[in-house]
């Protein structure tokens, strides 16, 4: 059981999965920061200036963390940041639900009519948080895609 959780291939797959989610999530936000700032404003916790600061920096951070995690660069740093982002976002969604806000999540699309927040989103985030925390503390981080491909070249 212990070796399963420390298995390098499993680590690699989960890095690719988590990193891929963050790369995809960042793309829509990077191309339209004003729309993302609007999504942030819907949560009614920060003003326009802070919303725009977040909209400027956060998508880039998601993209960098996602790509770095996939290629195996700074895996623990990425896992730490992803955990912080996920925990922060989950708290935000929970707060919005408690206040009765009927808003879009703003996670993958800035369309106000899709991806409405709900307890399902919280459950999904909790699952992702577990994965990122595991990546933060697991041993055997000295593996990346290039190393894996060199050790397992295509034999066809």
């Amino acid at each position, binding site marked *: 059981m212990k070796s399963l959780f420390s298995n390098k291939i499993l680590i690699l797959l989960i890095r690719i999965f988590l990193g891929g989610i963050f790369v995809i999530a960042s793309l829509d936000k*990077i191309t*339209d*920061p*004003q*729309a993302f*700032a*609007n999504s942030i*404003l819907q949560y009614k916790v920060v003003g*326009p200036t802070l*919303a*725009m600061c977040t*909209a*400027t*920096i*956060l*998508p*880039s*951070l998601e*993209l*960098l*963390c996602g790509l*770095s995690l996939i290629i195996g660069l*700074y895996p*623990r*740093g*990425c*896992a*730490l*940041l992803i955990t912080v982002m996920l925990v922060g976002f989950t708290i935000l969604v929970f707060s919005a639900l408690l206040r009765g806000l009927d808003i879009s999540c703003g996670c993958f699309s800035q369309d*106000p*009519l899709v991806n409405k927040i709900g307890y399902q989103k919280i459950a999904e985030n909790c699952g992702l948080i577990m994965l990122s925390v595991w990546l*933060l*503390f697991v041993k055997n981080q000295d593996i990346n895609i290039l190393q894996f491909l060199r050790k397992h070249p295509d034999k066809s």
Partner: protein
Amino acid sequence: MRKRELNMRLALLEALVLIVAAIVLGVAFTFVTHQGFFAKTQPMPPAATPNMEMISLAQAKEYLDSHNALFIDARHEFDYQEGHIRGAVNIALKKFDAHITRLNKISKDKLLVVYCDGAECNSSIELTVKLIESGFTNVKVFFGGWQEWNSAKLPVEK
């Protein structure tokens, strides 16, 4: 325990590097693409549309005082929330389709006054074209827009 401590310190250092890189990347990208804090609207000449009437600041003020007009702010919601003409509703050009249901509740001969940022913004004209195509017959464009209205210190709200 010591190894775990070192791993956490390493994680924090890596995180710091990524944050700095993200700030640089985010600011540089929005600067180069003129978005976010560095956004600026493209100056374009007004489109010639037969049914479109351009009105002046004075006329716009008259319409506001008459309480007969519905002012429509064609800017992005972010700009609308920063400040808009008193009583104006926000129908951003990009989100026009999302407001169809709301627009259908308005009488087609209702006096509408559409504006955006000002002379360097064409969104008011493009939104007016869409409104006219949707059947509205009494649409005016206040081309001086938010900049002219706010500079004249006329009634605004956030």
